């Protein structure tokens, strides 16, 4: 991923697609990305208003030409309803991060909770040795949160992957 980011031609793209909610569609989707040489950076999926339709948000590194080709290839998959590339300036991207941090003494516990408050995170579990927090935001925010917690010692961390949606028309 770092190698990719250092390549100036590559940009991060957010692809949104909807597929029939049936067995095997995820593997069809994932297979196409790997077949065309992409690594999926994040993927998040769930039903929409219609339980028969699953909506995926996928982020990958690509360039302006290759991404068009990829979208046209995706559109050929029979279970696909639509494929869109979201414009970052007109869309909202969020992921949920859960993180369990070492917190064996009162001082670190306080500090962790304060950091959590600044990030509008919430404490969801606390034990004598650790605190588990959740925070929601785009990848920059969750990354900043993660960096701040590193010094306390992160025991475990999980991300949902980005979900994204277009902003409403003004």
């Amino acid at each position: 991923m770092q190698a990719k980011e250092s390549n100036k031609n590559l940009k991060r793209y957010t692809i949104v697609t909807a597929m029939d909610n049936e067995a095997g569609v995820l593997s069809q989707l994932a297979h196409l990305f790997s077949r065309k040489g992409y690594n999926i950076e994040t993927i998040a999926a769930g039903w929409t208003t219609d339980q028969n339709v699953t909506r995926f948000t996928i982020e990958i590194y690509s360039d302006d030409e290759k991404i068009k080709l990829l979208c046209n290839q995706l559109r050929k998959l029979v279970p696909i309803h639509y494929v869109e590339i979201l414009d970052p300036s007109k869309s909202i991207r969020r992921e949920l991060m859960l993180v369990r941090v070492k917190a064996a003494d009162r001082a670190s516990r306080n500090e962790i909770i304060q950091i959590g408050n600044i990030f509008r995170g919430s404490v969801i579990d606390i034990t004598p040795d650790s605190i588990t927090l959740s925070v929601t935001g785009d990848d920059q925010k969750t990354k900043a949160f993660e960096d701040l917690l590193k010094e306390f010692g992160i025991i475990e961390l999980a991300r949902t992957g980005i979900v994204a949606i277009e902003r409403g028309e003004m």
Partner: protein
Amino acid sequence: MNTSRKLNGSEILIQCLIEQGVDTIFGYPGGAILNVYDKLYDHKEIKHILTAHEQGASHAADGYARSTGKVGVCFATSGPGSTNLTTGVATAYMDSSPVVFITCNVNSDLIGRDSFQEVDITGVTLPITKCSYTVSKVEKLADTVREAFLIAKSGRPGPVLIDIQKNATSDECEYYPMTPDEYFSSNENRISRLKKTHHPSIGYPDIDLSAIDELAELIDKSEKPLLICGGGVVRAKASQEFRTLATRIDSPVAITVMGGGAFPGDSPLKTGMIGMHGSQASNMACDSCDLLIAVGCRFSDRVTLNPAGFAKNAKIVHIDIDASEINKNVKSDLSIVGDAKKILNLLLAKLKRDKKNDLWKDYVFSFKRETEYDDRTDETLTPKEILSSAAEILPQDTIVTTDVGQHQMWAIQHFKFDYPGQLITSGGFGTMGFGLGAAIGAQVGNPEKTVLHVTGDGSFRMNCNELCTEEYYKLPIITLIFNNSTLGMVRQWQHLIYKERYSQTTLDRSPDFTKLAEAYGVHGRKVTNVEMLRNVLTEAVNARKNGDNVGWVIDCKIDMDEMVRPMVGGNSFISEFMLY
């Protein structure tokens, strides 16, 4: 409303095939597909061709589809039966041939337990089908079969696989008959969604009319046009429109391997094949044209070689049904996505005037459009002698199937194909062993025609077991083996690029092909000179006239060092011939 009946899955499958007009199936039975074969026993109106191996059946269904324009159907059982199909599935996929492959799998309750002959064939074929389905419940079966046929033949055609779990072939449910038209117009299936969203798997996108105007403008300005006739012209049945366009704009026409048959082989506008073994006229025209219009061609690396310098002086116009082909291999200046027949008709109506490009044609045709192979006088035949004899003695409308290698290139360079479906060859996947199965499918689908199977000793050895199918079903296929005792095309590369280090390409080994043919019960002949060959071909033609429906295997001895010319090395520029 049609009345329903309660039927088991196997009977529903067969009823659905009948709905689609299927009267011929190629296949091979086995444990998981037994229920289906048991029902087939009651349906003598469906002809089942039992091959020696599932791969042969897969190529036969493909050859049948390509030569008849119908959807081919192929059956196989689970596990090895289904994996044996995969080379055939990939071959059909790369050449956009509509075939429905139907496999059966173990019972639903045994799935995922590594049961005997269990394999996830739907997963295996994911990258080599337009769509692959798993059917675990009989209620889903009928609509899946209908959808599969529609998808296989619509848009850019291609293979589809349906894997039916055994319980779904024995369980019963209500079957409501439905014609393909009724199915297509129904709103209670997935097709209605695909229609609504103009899904490329079944639909033709709305053609961009402004692009048609723009193309008409480009044509009007062009003084050096070149048309490329690709496989899409064959699949879209657009050869008539393509011919009219070429004549009206007076443009030379280069033909890809897959485009063979879509443009008349004896037309004065034909430059010949284009690409790695393209004629000098084609490749030089491509290098200096000012407008290149490619119809139904995906600019494969065997056509474009180094894409950076491809048609470097030209505006490149790409007409294709598949939007994902645009700018994939070659960047185009103008692209029109849609059905070639419709696009060409729209374009013909917009042409400002008919053109004459005599200067340009004089230039293009100052280069050779056919390779001049040397005549030899020794005890071996030359490819040219073999093909000239075949062209002269066999009927003009003979269907030609090929395997892959030197003989394939020679045959395509030499024969003058007249109609779409006359040339059946594995262009994209390059499948050695394709030819005999394809010939069987072509002969079954076209019983009145002569089918010529051009092969090499390497390719023929791969699937020659299908001679038993040829014999059993009385298919008078004529097989011409270009026998050079080597893998000629690989040897040619070893000769030119690998300093004559002939690693593992010499085939100085059995069998004696004439004895093999006789063992299978077909005529076998060995020929070493033109006269012998001409006599055998005449004998074959006469035997057929006299009602002898036994096939022929003619083993033609050619020189080991004979090469396919011209040749441009991979990734070189198209005009940089390494052999002339």
